[in-house]
């Protein structure tokens, strides 16, 4: 039997994860998963692959809300979005194949270096 305090702490964690994930996702149009997955793993002791799947279920409704907001504010360029999305669908397929032959650790390292360089460039 779980105590009342345990349940309160758990809900406090849900609130924290939800608020931070949602705010980042709305403010930056991305990054929800990057926050939600490790938060669920470390704060709620979720298994990694379950956390990944659950994060998608969490972020989809948040993204829909943020998208509606962005559309009404006129921030969505549909022509640009369509072209990039077409590439993305192909990329998802290629990515799954690539993961089978290229070690994920290496890809993650390349990716982290790219993010650092891009981040610095955007700050300056």
């Amino acid at each position: 039997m779980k105590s009342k305090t345990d349940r309160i702490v758990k809900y406090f964690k849900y609130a924290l994860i939800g608020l931070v994930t949602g705010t980042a996702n709305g403010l930056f149009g991305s990054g929800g998963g990057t926050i939600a997955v490790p938060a669920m793993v470390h704060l709620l002791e979720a298994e990694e692959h379950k956390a990944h799947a659950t994060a998608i279920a969490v972020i989809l409704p948040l993204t829909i809300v943020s998208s509606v907001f962005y559309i009404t504010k006129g921030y969505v360029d549909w022509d640009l979005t369509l072209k990039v999305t077409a590439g993305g669908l192909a990329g998802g397929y290629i990515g799954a194949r690539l993961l089978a032959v290229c070690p994920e650790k290496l890809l993650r390292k390349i990716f982290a270096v790219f993010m650092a360089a891009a981040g610095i460039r955007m700050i300056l």
Partner: protein
Amino acid sequence: MSIIILLLIGIAAGIISGMGIGGGAILIPALVIVLNPEQHTAQGVNLIFFIPTAVVALFIHIKNKQIDFKMAIPIIAFGLCGAFLGSWLAARIAGGELKRLFGIFLLSMSLYEMLRKGKNPGEKAIQRARNEKQ
């Protein structure tokens, strides 16, 4: 020419999302650096971009019973408040400022990605499961 670049950016982002890191961390900076659209526009592309892929992934995960709804539902409830707050904030920040803030966010994500190696208890379990399958 620009269509090819856009497709390449999409492909790079698609590859990264397949790894579960979030394609936005590639998509948004790549768009901003190559095409230099308004920061809000680049973020808008990423939001819409995510929806179709997430719907497909969600169906598969629901079928495989990988989603912990007991955990997801309360997080969604609070997350929706956050989504309103975040989008509202974004609309109040000028493009140049938002771009800089995004850069800081990206840099902290990359630091986390570089430092997290070997700390994850779940990774070993996944690796074991993968090996068993083969």
